[in-house]
Structures are given as C-alpha cells and as structure tokens.
C-alpha cells in the first residue's frame, strides 16, 4: 500500500478498496516469488556457512556439524560458563558460521573440566547432555604435523611438551621410540580412540608453528580403519 497515501486516507473508513482487491492476486503471486527467493538465498548462504575453518574446534559434546547448526541458537551460554574463557562466539567475517561457539586450541585450549560446565549451560542440546565423562569428548583429533620441526622427532632434544600437556597422557598420546638415520628419536603419537581434541598439546608445543594440531574429526579422521593403525 502506498505509504504516502496513509496520511490522506485517515478519515476514510478502513477496508480494502476495489482497486487493491483487483491487484490482490498478482500481488500474492509476486509475494510468493519473493518469499521463495528469500528462502532460496538463505538456504544457499546457510549451506556455505557450514564450511568451518579447519582450526575452529567446537565445544565438547557438540553434535555433528549439520545437526549442530539445527540446534545451536548461538546464545553464548556455553561461552559464559567456561571457566577458562576457552570458547567464544564467531564474529561476522570469521570463517565460522556467525555467532556459533568455537575455540582455537593454539590460543586457549579446552581444559577438560570434570563437570563440563559448557555442556551443562547449553539450553538446546546442541552440546549433547549425554556427554557426562569429559574423557569421552570428541572435539577433534590431534594430528602430528611437525615432521620438519618437532624437536623430539628431530632428535635435537626430548621435548615432550605435548605429552606432558595431555590430560589423558599415555592413552591419547604416547612418545614412540623410533630409530631414524641411525639415531633414536621420539615420535609424538596420537591414539584416535582416546584423544578428545582438547588441544592442550597444540597449545604447549614449543615450535613456532605448532607441530601437533587439533583438527575436526571430519578432516583428521575420515577412515576409521586407517586412522586406528596410526597408533
């Protein structure tokens, strides 16, 4: 309806004029098309929003990414209840769906709180309340990427920072003795079935670019059989 007309119309009785009625059908059609266009654009944009940066790790208990985006209302209650300020909400422009919670292990890893306050805080179930044992969390998987720089693997020193950092050391990560070029070296070795993806190892790695990095499972472990053999 013409906005400018509203002023002139005021003393007239309310109701549709014959003219607006005549246009009603074409108008409905146009509105319907507009609605479809809006829906399609949103659907497309939403799908692209699913592409999550490789370094962005979801909080413990997060549903698999597609379900997570159906569940998380982006309220930040998990962020607020994390005692270590690990989590934050993606800001617009970051390569994470806007407003959703994530963490960067190299900045602040997850400290694997026994009582998992982030999961308790979540009102929607986007962080699955079925997760009650933090050691069963599956935020991602640590992957050794330091063939060229890890001090343990170079044989420069027995650094073990990642091993020491790991809250489930001995299970999730072990230092495997190898003989490389006639020298004894240690390979930080992640065991996929025990690693929670907390990122403590990545955080504490002493090389400038971390030699061990947590990746979302979908990137780090696409084939369960092969990944298991790594350990």
């Amino acid at each position, binding site marked *: 309806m013409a906005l400018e007309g509203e002023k002139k119309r005021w003393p007239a009785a309310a109701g549709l004029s014959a003219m607006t009625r005549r246009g009603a059908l074409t108008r409905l059609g146009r509105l319907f098309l507009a609605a479809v266009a809006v829906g399609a654009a949103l659907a497309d944009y939403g799908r692209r929003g699913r592409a999550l940066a490789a370094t962005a790790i979801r909080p413990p208990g997060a549903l698999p990414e597609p379900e997570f985006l159906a569940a998380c209302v982006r*309220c930040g209650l998990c962020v607020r209840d994390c005692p270590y300020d690990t989590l934050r909400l993606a800001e617009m422009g970051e390569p994470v769906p806007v407003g959703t919670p994530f963490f960067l292990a190299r900045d602040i890893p997850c400290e694997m709180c026994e009582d998992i306050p982030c999961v308790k805080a979540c009102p929607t179930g986007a962080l699955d309340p079925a997760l009650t044992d933090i050691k069963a969390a599956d935020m991602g998987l640590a992957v050794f990427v330091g063939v060229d720089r890890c001090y343990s693997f170079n044989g420069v020193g027995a650094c073990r920072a990642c091993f020491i950092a790991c809250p489930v050391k001995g299970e999730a990560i072990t230092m495997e003795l190898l003989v490389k070029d006639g020298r004894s070296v240690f390979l930080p070795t992640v065991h996929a079935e025990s690693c929670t993806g907390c990122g403590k190892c990545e955080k504490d790695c002493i090389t400038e670019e971390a030699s061990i990095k947590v990746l979302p499972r979908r990137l780090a472990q696409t084939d369960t059989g092969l990944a298991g053999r790594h350990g």
Partner: protein
Amino acid sequence: MDKIVPAPFGKWLILRRLCQFGILALFLASPWLGVWLLKGNLASSLVLERLPLTDPFIALQSLAAGHDLAATAVLGALIVAGFYLLVGGRAYCAWVCPINPVTDAAAALRRAFGLRATWKLRRQTRYWIAAAVVVASAVTGTIAWEVINPITMLHRGLVFGMGAAWVVVLAIFLFDLFAAKHGWCGHLCPVGAFYGVLGSASLLRVSAVRRDACTHCGDCFHICPEPQVINPALYGGASGVSPVITDRDCINCGRCLDVCGEDVFQFTTRFGAGHAPSSKQKNERANQK
C-alpha cells in the same frame, strides 16, 4: 505542506529507551558485577542463573530444522511466548529489540528532513518472509534466519563482540532512511512478523478511548510506525468498531499516547475501555461525512 513534527520526546519514548538500553546494560554489566543478572543473549538467556528465556521464533526454526530441542529451551520459549501474549507480541519490537532504536532514528531523520521518497513495499511481505524462513529451516536443516538476523547479530555483537556485524545494521539504517519509510521493521522483518502473529490475541493494547476528542490533527499518524492500525480504532466509531487497536501490527510503543494533544489514546486491555459512542455522537459523525 510538511507538518511540524510534534515533540520528539514523551514519557513512553523515554521509558522504552530505558527498557531497551536497560536490558542491554544488564547483559553487559553482569560479567563486571560478577552477578549474572542476565546471561547469554536475546536468542537464549538465563535470568539470575535460574529462569531460562528463549526466543520462540528461533526455537520454532530449530524444531523445523529437525532438532529435538532440549527441555530448557522449550521452557524458555514458552515463558517468552506467554509473556508476549500478555504484553502484546510486538511489544518485543518497541521495548526489547535493539534494531528498533536504529530504525526509529532513521524514521526521525526522515521526519526532520522531510524525506518522503519511498519504495512502495507491502506490509504483508514480512509474513511471507517469516513463512519462508521456517520453510528454509526445514529444507536446509539449519536455523535459517540466524545466518543473517540483524537483531541477534547486533545484540550478540554488543555483548560478545561485533566483527563486521555493524555493516548489516548500517545497511538497515540506510535502507530505512533513503529507500523505504519504515522499510525494515514495517515491511520486511520476519521476527517482528512472528511476534505480531504471536500477539494477535494479546491482552495489553492501545485504545483510542477518547476518540471523540480527536481533532484530526494527524499527529499520531505521523509518528506511528504502523499507521494503518490506527484508522479503524480512531475513526471506526460510526460503524461501531471498538476503539481498541487490535491489529497485530501495533507494536505497543505508546508514541501515539505521547504525541496526541487531546489524550485520545491509552493503554488498556483488549477487552477494556470499549467506550461505545452514543447514538448522538454517531449521528454527528455521520453528518460530518
């Protein structure tokens, strides 16, 4: 031909701004105070670490997307929905939504500078967009509107960190200022549309209780963001239409109360203050025509 704009301030406008910014202030101050008066954001929050609140439109999209929403969020959405059933669905727009001050500012500038050029959008479009959003949620399995929702983007931005979200807010401001009068909130926003539908049967309403005193100055029409809602209540006396504004588009902002020199308008319940005009008044009105 331009009317002199009535006093830009009034009791209800001041109360409304206090409410809007007060809510924001509670979210912002809580971490500093160390007392969680309000925690979270407008999508979902906790009052005093106890009472859960969830935006029912977001909850609806989550359900449409196929998520089995946890009990806390469902309870929160019911509480919020119940509240707006009492105070008027779009009271959310006038008293809570952080975009409202932005679009109000655009409207005020339009009035101040006499900007009249406007695209002719349909007031109905927002309802279609709201429906499209729910369908898009079901089809994509995501909470579709949250990808772009300027309301939660601005609010989340202010409470948690803005990023580039201000671009969206600026776009809405410029759109309302230069492209379409009351363009966003009055024609496009599906959140306002949802709350409007939610509040279709709401209790608290504005009523033109003293419509017989109306001098036809038009001040209320000029200030009202949804002027089409006033017409039947203010001028429907002759045809026996109740003075209560029952149109779901009314945002219960109270601006009409503020600007009316004759105190025609009042907040009432939808059942209250149904001053039917006497037959004498009816005749007078008929004669005026």
